[in-house]
């Protein structure tokens, strides 16, 4: 288990394809001798950080498209019958938010661990909670779908049930993707080769899923 490995490793290194020797992070002493020092960007953020923001931008655009579609569709015809959201959704919301909290806790512990201050605690323990809560959330969403079905509201029953299933299931898929990422993070952590940038990227994604869900809930609550 991770705790037995004593070296507090790969954390603070600036990340770069050639082990820190290129990218604008390295070679701080050298300046191009045509004197244009504005050319030197002193610090390059790790690509995974930028990458995750790119991914989140794409996801936001997708849901923006869904949102505008929902608004247009609601205005398009008189067939919009408001449905009452299954109670369990509110519970699911709490679960997802809680998972974000546990994630933050685990980040603190991992920092301590990787910083080499304390090797006795298992840095992964809070991550297990995060994963558990994530699974519970998806299961809860499934229950919500079952409840709607029992009310005879299927995907094609009416436009707002269509949008309900569409939005929730696409979001649930993204959460599942996040869980896959989480397993990757935990594997890395066990090998003590977890990079901070990786953990940051993952937590950005996970928190974003929480925010996105709250947004969706509000949208559904207002529009449906």
């Amino acid at each position, binding site marked *: 288990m991770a705790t037995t490995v004593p070296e507090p490793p790969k954390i603070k290194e600036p990340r770069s394809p050639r082990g820190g020797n290129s990218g604008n992070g390295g070679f701080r002493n050298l300046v191009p001798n045509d004197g244009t020092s504005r050319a030197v960007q002193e610090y390059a953020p790790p690509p995974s950080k*930028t990458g995750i923001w790119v991914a989140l931008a794409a996801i936001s655009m997708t849901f923006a498209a869904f949102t505008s579609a929902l608004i247009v569709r609601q205005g*398009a015809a008189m067939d919009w019958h408001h449905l009452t959201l299954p109670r369990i959704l509110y519970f699911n919301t709490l679960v997802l938010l809680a998972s974000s909290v546990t994630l933050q806790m685990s980040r603190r512990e991992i920092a301590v661990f990787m910083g080499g201050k304390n090797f006795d605690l298992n840095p992964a323990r809070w991550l297990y909670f995060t994963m558990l809560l994530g699974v519970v959330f998806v299961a809860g969403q499934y229950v919500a779908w079952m409840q709607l079905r029992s009310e005879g509201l299927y995907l094609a029953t009416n436009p707002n049930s269509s949008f309900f299933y569409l939005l929730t299931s696409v979001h649930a898929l993204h959460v599942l993707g996040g869980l896959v990422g989480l397993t990757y993070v935990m594997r890395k952590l066990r090998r003590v080769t977890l990079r901070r940038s990786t953990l940051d990227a993952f937590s950005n994604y996970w928190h974003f899923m929480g925010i996105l869900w709250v947004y969706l809930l509000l949208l559904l609550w207002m529009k449906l």
Partner: protein
Amino acid sequence: MHDTSTHAVAHHGPPTSFIRKHIFSLDHKVIGKQYYGLGLAAVIIGMVLSWLMRIHLGWTNYAIPGLHLLSKNGAAGDIMTPDFYLQLMTMHATFMVFFVLTVAPFAAFGNFFLPIHVGAEDMPFPHFNMMSFWVTFVAFCVMLLSFFVGDGPTLGGWTQYAPLSAVGAVAGPGEGAGVVLWATSIAIFCVGQLLGTLNFIPNVLDLRAKGMSLWRLPLPTWAWFITSCMGLTAFSVLMPACIMLILDHVAGTSFFVASNLVINDQLQPHSGGSTLLWQHLFWFFGHPEVYIAIVPGMGIISHVLITNMRKPMLSHRVIVYSLVALAVLSYMVYGHHMFVSGMNPLSSLLFSFPTLLITIPSTILVLIWIGSLYGAKLRINAASLFALGFISMFVTGGVSGFFLAQPSIQILLHATYFVVAHFHFTMAIAAIFGIFSGTYFWFPKMWGRMMNETLGKVHFWCSFVGVYCIFMPMHYLGLAGNVRRYQAFVVDYMQPLVGVHRFITIAALFTGAAQLIFIYNFIHSRFWGKPAPANPWEGTSLEWSVPSPPPHDNFGGRHVVVYHDPYQYGVQSSTGDYVMQDSPEQVKSAHEEP
């Protein structure tokens, strides 16, 4: 999202097995070539389809030998049926727009050269990069599959306007399984391209070599960067639209299908959907897509021209700013595709002004290109010829934009051949010329051999003249009110125009045949061309400072440091009239940035 670049370092020593080397390769250069191959395959398919269409338009009842083999829904006696024509038309557009004009200039060249231009060893996430290609390849296969399923591919046109595309097989052959496959393929394609942008953007922002400021990036890299930003926002809107379209088909939802539609005397089981919703979602993607196709070409031909003019463009920055302006404006103008589509007439006007606005950055680009030619020492070769051809084409396509930007004139010209001429000159032909220019220019670097210049020039002359013969007359057809997407001209006032169509058909067959020269040249040079030196064109950007083809990690472990702006031409130096970006040599550069 998670950081695969450890793998980049870990299993990124030169792979040994054939599979890892040539098929599931993590090397951006191999992936770039794979994309190029995909584009080549798609362009051949698209061209053959356009041949069949043109023959039919010229000689409507001419039996094309073997046509029935292509058509799933029967072209008995090899005579093309109306539905089969529309299926060919749809597939021609789809293959060209998605699998050629998006893949070749952006994904193919971008993958190969962007990391080298910024001085990086590879893309930040090689695994995503590899997935990006293979996902796109799957999309390509699904699209091909639709030729062999049900009644064949969809006939709804690449714009797939609902409800025709959403009510299912009852609307005509190919509107059932065909549309579902189409939408599935496009959704997959979007994922592939999004994975691509996921690599391009961080690569430019984070992996630049020391001294490589953003302003020192060569123009193609700027173009690819801007294009990725567009792709990021465009494809992530098209994908949900496709998902909703599929649901309307397979799940019976009513996103796009309105109430009380009656087809074949059957009341359709949908209700309340919004017809315009699809058009808005589609064109919000569709217009940026036009620029996704053309902007990389602009970057490429600037690059090629500068190298062959032996002087930088009048202003590096103005070009970059104009490209950015194009990208931003492209989101505000999509409505001009819908002027007469039942949108609120006021919004038509509102959309028309940014559309007119967009002519300004385009004009600036053209003026800078032409103005920079002044006082150049122009070297004429296949690459530069195609680059100059690009400018000519772009001008021709641009001025027809004046007309289509105005709602009042679209009352006459909307959905006529005038539009066909306009978008072929701009996003199709200009973009293709950009691809050819890039190919002749970079072939030595990509495959380590020179292409045959003579054949290249012959290819250029045939293409240049041929293309004008094909598309210039379409303007006249449009003025005469000849509606597009017709498989025959039975309307009285269109019948006199068939002569023009025959002329176009002959020109198209000739021009298409001329492309065989290119294909021969490509294959022959690939294997038997004479080996290429590292810097055949005396270029300055980083790709010319590495061997042809570049080693596995691009710079052979060398830590690139960049000392100069990208285009140091017309200077006195040890190498001649140019200085490489990464040479520390001090020069009195004749062309400093203003």
